[in-house]
């Protein structure tokens, strides 16, 4: 498959892993920011291929995971209202709110629908003029252009029955917050390739300069990830701290200018609460004044939300990279994908779910010795 199979070549991957091995002289801690990268690293066993000294720390880049509990509860309250069609990306449906999730709301008669594009939700609004259609607009800069386009189109069409429940978050302030946090261990970042396909990487040189960390724009296929890691290690070993693009087939320095123009029109920067982490100043987007009429929080006045996180869940520590999922005492016990206590156990991009699904509750040694034909994991 063009642009996929080429980047999944096992032989080249082994060669790159050996190269990383040969250039690594001491331990390094590298954070991949994006949940899609976490998923791919675990699914493809990239972490098993790296030298023992290189530790991949999984960052807060799963949009499902960092959407604040209060907003989930608001979503549940809106979705439960009669006359509302509540549209969402699929993996938001199982995220636990304080008392329920969207699947339960659907089961109790709420009209909850999975759509692939917010523009499909706009079409639903056109087709159902007697209903209020709400789209749950979460995510990082990657999903923002389509969400922005949905309200842009809704406004142009004069739709009065479409609104967006927005919780957009931004990567650069999150990186700054992690680097500023006391006890930070992260020494370099793989930047999220698809975020950068929208935004370019012009925002990052000041961060690399200020904090003295290498930042490498990285893709999602195994060879992309290994190349990103390789370039990061080269910089770390050489004591350099530059912004580098290892995803050139997709990402340019300037990014998608048309998308950025639309984003600047539709959204404005705001402080955002990140689930498990807390409020990070200027770390998100909300609808700008010109589009405030399409804000579901304004349209539906939801009050009386009292959120309560599970006292066992340590998703915040996982999202900050402070602990690995398996170090949480509830991991695989009280908390499983079937009964998630926190959002990181829900989305396949969530670090806890990725660990659970791909068997990281089994030790790497057990896996490595797993039967004939299944040996040869090149972990050292």
């Amino acid at each position, binding site marked *: 498959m063009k642009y996929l199979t080429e980047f999944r070549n096992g032989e080249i991957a082994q060669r790159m892993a050996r190269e990383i091995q040969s250039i690594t002289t001491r331990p390094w801690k590298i954070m991949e920011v994006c949940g899609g990268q976490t998923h791919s690293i675990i699914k493809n066993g990239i972490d098993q291929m790296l030298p023992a000294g290189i530790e991949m720390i999984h960052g807060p880049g799963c949009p499902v995971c960092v959407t604040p509990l209060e907003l989930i509860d608001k979503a549940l309250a809106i979705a439960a209202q009669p006359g509302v069609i509540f549209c969402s990306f699929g993996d938001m449906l199982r995220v636990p709110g304080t008392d329920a999730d969207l699947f339960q709301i659907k089961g109790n008669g709420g009209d909850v629908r999975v759509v692939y594009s917010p523009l499909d939700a706009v079409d639903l609004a056109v087709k159902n003029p007697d209903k209020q259609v709400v789209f749950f607009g979460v995510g990082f800069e990657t*999903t923002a252009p389509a969400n922005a386009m949905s309200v842009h189109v809704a406004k142009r069409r004069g739709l009065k029955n479409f609104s967006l429940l927005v919780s957009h978050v931004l990567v650069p302030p999150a990186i700054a917050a992690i680097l500023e946090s006391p006890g930070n261990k992260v020494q370099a970042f793989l930047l999220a390739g698809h975020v950068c396909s929208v935004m370019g990487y012009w925002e990052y040189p000041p961060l690399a300069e200020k904090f003295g960390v290498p930042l490498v724009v990285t893709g999602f296929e195994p060879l992309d990830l290994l190349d990103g890691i390789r370039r990061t290690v080269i910089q770390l070993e050489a004591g350099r701290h530059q912004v580098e693009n290892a995803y050139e087939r997709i990402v340019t320095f300037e990014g998608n200018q048309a998308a950025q123009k639309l984003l600047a029109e539709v959204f404005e920067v705001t402080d955002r609460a990140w689930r498990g982490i807390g409020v990070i100043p200027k770390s998100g987007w909300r609808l700008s004044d010109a589009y405030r009429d399409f804000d579901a929080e304004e349209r539906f006045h939801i009050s009386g939300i009292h959120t309560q996180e599970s006292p066992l869940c340590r998703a915040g520590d996982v999202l900050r990279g402070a602990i690995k999922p398996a170090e949480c005492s509830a991991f695989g016990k009280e908390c499983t994908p079937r009964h998630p206590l926190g959002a990181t156990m829900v989305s396949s991009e969530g670090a806890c779910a990725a660990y659970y699904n791909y068997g990281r509750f089994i030790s790497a040694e057990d896996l490595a010795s797993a039967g004939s034909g299944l040996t040869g994991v090149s972990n050292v």
Partner: protein
Amino acid sequence: MSESPKSGTPDFSNWSCPLPLVGYPTIVMGHGGGGKLGNELVEHLFLPAFRNAALENLGDAAVLDLPSGRLAMSTDSFVVQPLFFPGGSIGELAINGTVNDLAVSGAIPKYLSASFILEEGFPLAQLAAIVESMARAAATAGVQIVTGDTKVVERGHGDGCYINTAGIGLLRDGISVGPHRAQPGDAVLVSGFIGDHGMAIMSVREGLEFESQIRSDCAALNGLIAEVLDAAGTAVHAMRDPTRGGLASTLNEIAISSNVGVAIDETSMPVRTEVQSACELLGLDPVYVANEGKAVFFVAPEAADQVLAVLRAHPLGRDAARIGHVTTEHKRMLVARTAMGSNRVIPTQIGEQLPRIC
């Protein structure tokens, strides 16, 4: 079905209901009321399509002559949406699903029941098309529909048409297959490309439509399985049709039932490029996507090449592949070797696969 019918299969390409239904163009409550309208459905639609001696008696129960021996029985309900999809319809699924459940149990499927739960307002033309597809599928599979029932629910209380089928088959002599019988060393074979049915449905489901050429693999596997059992007999230890939950769920079930580990090689799994592409786009994994015309075989290693040859010689098994083996390691788990040379556990899916955000 994409496969050409085997010789001796009745040709339904010009088939139409000989006595068009009079009166209502849609299902009304009276069609399930046991009165004249219901009788009309039977006489004008079901009987002409399914006609056979046992059904024609129209008694409360079909009376069947069966040879002595062991019987297998299975039932399944079909609620697919949309009812018609690329490569098939709920009608074919309802026949092939039960036929395949019997066949993978080592039985020769013989007789089926068919029960319909119809929603008030359901177009009769669509029901006729479904019934026709069932008749065609039954003829292809060599089974008879010998009894049935129709109920009508009020509008809004159903999804157009639900079908339940139950079937009985004769267990073959000298065959002893079961999900608990996989043994360390067994080769794991799959009869063709995985994920076709699930992605065909996904491509036409409301709100998720995408352009594709993917067609459901819906097919009756009893002919294919009979050839495998004729050739390999007791060397076949376990068979399953990986429907809901896909290949991953089936292999996990067998690993657990047999208390063994199942190891597969991801690079040897047959997946169509279109299916792989669609899965990549939607954030799905083909190992979890449903199949309706595929079987997985656990066979003694010395018989693996022979079974593979038999499969590949059959029109429904042309793309069969050996994908892994059974091991005493990682008991009760499915572990895949990735293209990268690393290993990953493939767990049973929780509920439905959810499309990812990005």
